[in-house]
C-alpha cells in the first residue's frame, strides 16, 4: 500500500491532515474562548 519511498498514499495523508487540522482548530477555539472569558472577568 505504501509507495517505494516508504510514504503512505496521498488519500491517507489527506485524511490525517483533516483530522489534525480539526483537532488543532478546536484547541485554538478553546484557548480563544478562555481569552474572551478572562477579558470578561477583568471587565466585571
Amino acid at each position, binding site marked *: 500500500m505504501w509507495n*517505494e*519511498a*516508504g*510514504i503512505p498514499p*496521498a488519500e491517507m*495523508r*489527506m485524511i*490525517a*491532515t483533516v483530522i*489534525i*487540522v480539526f483537532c*488543532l*482548530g478546536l*484547541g*485554538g477555539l478553546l*484557548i*480563544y474562548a*478562555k*481569552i474572551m472569558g*478572562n477579558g470578561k472577568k477583568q471587565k466585571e
Partner: protein
Amino acid sequence: MKNFLERLIDSALIRNFFDALSHKNIPATRKTFWYFFGGLTLFFCVIQGISGGLLLIYYSPTPQTAHESIQSILTTVPYGWLIRSIHVWSAHLLITSLFIHFGAGFFMSAYRTPRESVWISGILLLFLILGFAFTGSLLPWDARAYFATQIGTEIPRSFPVLGPFVVRLLRGTSLIGAESLKRLFALHVTILPVISILLILFHLIVNHKHGPSIADTADGRNAKQIPFFPEFLLRDCIAWLTGLGILLVLALNLPPLVGAKADPFVSAPAGIKPEWYFFPLYITLRMLPGAIMGLNTETLINILVAALGFAFLLTPFISHSSADRGGISFPKIAGAGILLYLLGTTIIGWILY
C-alpha cells in the same frame, strides 16, 4: 507523588519563575501581532531539536552510509518519513518566522537602548540558524546536497585573508568528502546547538530584563498592558497551534524525497541551486559579471555581505536613536531597500531558476 508535585510547584524556583512571568507586561497595540513571531521561532527551534534528535538515532554520517541511512529512515523506520518531513519543513518555517521576527524588530526599532544586548544576541542567532541550514543540507548525501555544498563552501574562498582558511575549516580536504561530512555533521548536531541554546537563553533573559520594545509614540505610550502570564501566553499558544497546523499540513502532504546518492566522480547535474534563503546571494553572484572594475565579484560580494552583517549587528550604535517617534530614519530607509532586494532576488530565484 502528589506531595512531591506540590512541593515542586511550590518550590522557590518555580514560584519565582511564574511570578516573574505574571509581573511582565506586554503592550496590546496594533503592533502586538508581530511579537508572536519570536515565540513562533522558539517553537520551531524546539520542533527542530526534537525531530533532529529522533533522526540522529538512525542517521550515520559517513559517505558510505549517510544516503543509505536516510533511505532506511524513509522506508523502514516507523514514521521515519514523517519525522524527516517535519524536520525539513520546520527548518523552512523556522527561517521564515526568524526573518519576520528580525524584520519586525528592525522596523519597530527594537534595538534601541537599553535593548542592545537583545538585538546583538538575536542577530548572532540569525547567523547561527542559517549556519544550521547550511551544515544540515549536506547530510542526506545526495547529488543535490553534494554539489550545492561544494558550490556553497567555495563562495567564502575569495574573502580576503580569511577565505581559504574558512573553506579548509569547513571541508577538511580540498573537495567535499568524508572529512567534510564529519565536520558539518559535528557542527550541525553538537557545536551549533550548544552555542544556540546558550544564546537563546541569554536572548530570553535579557529580553525579560529589559521588557518588550514599546514605540515612543502616543499609540505606544498609552497602550493597554496585558500580563505575559497567562494572557499573552494564551495568545502565543494560538500562534503555536497555527504554526503546528501549517507545519503538519506541509509535512504530511509534501514530504521531501531524497535524490540519487552523491558521486564525486560525475559532473554536477543541471539545475543545482541552493535553498530559497540563500537565493539573494546566489542570484546576485549569477547576475553580476566575473569582475567589477578589475576586482573579483565574489570578493566584493563577500566583503559586502560581511559589512552588511556588521551593520545589522551594530545598528543600535549606528542609529543613535534613543526613541522611535514613528518617523523615517536612515536605518529604516536602508532596511526597506535591503528588504526589497532580498524579496526581489528570492522571487527571481523561484521563478527563473
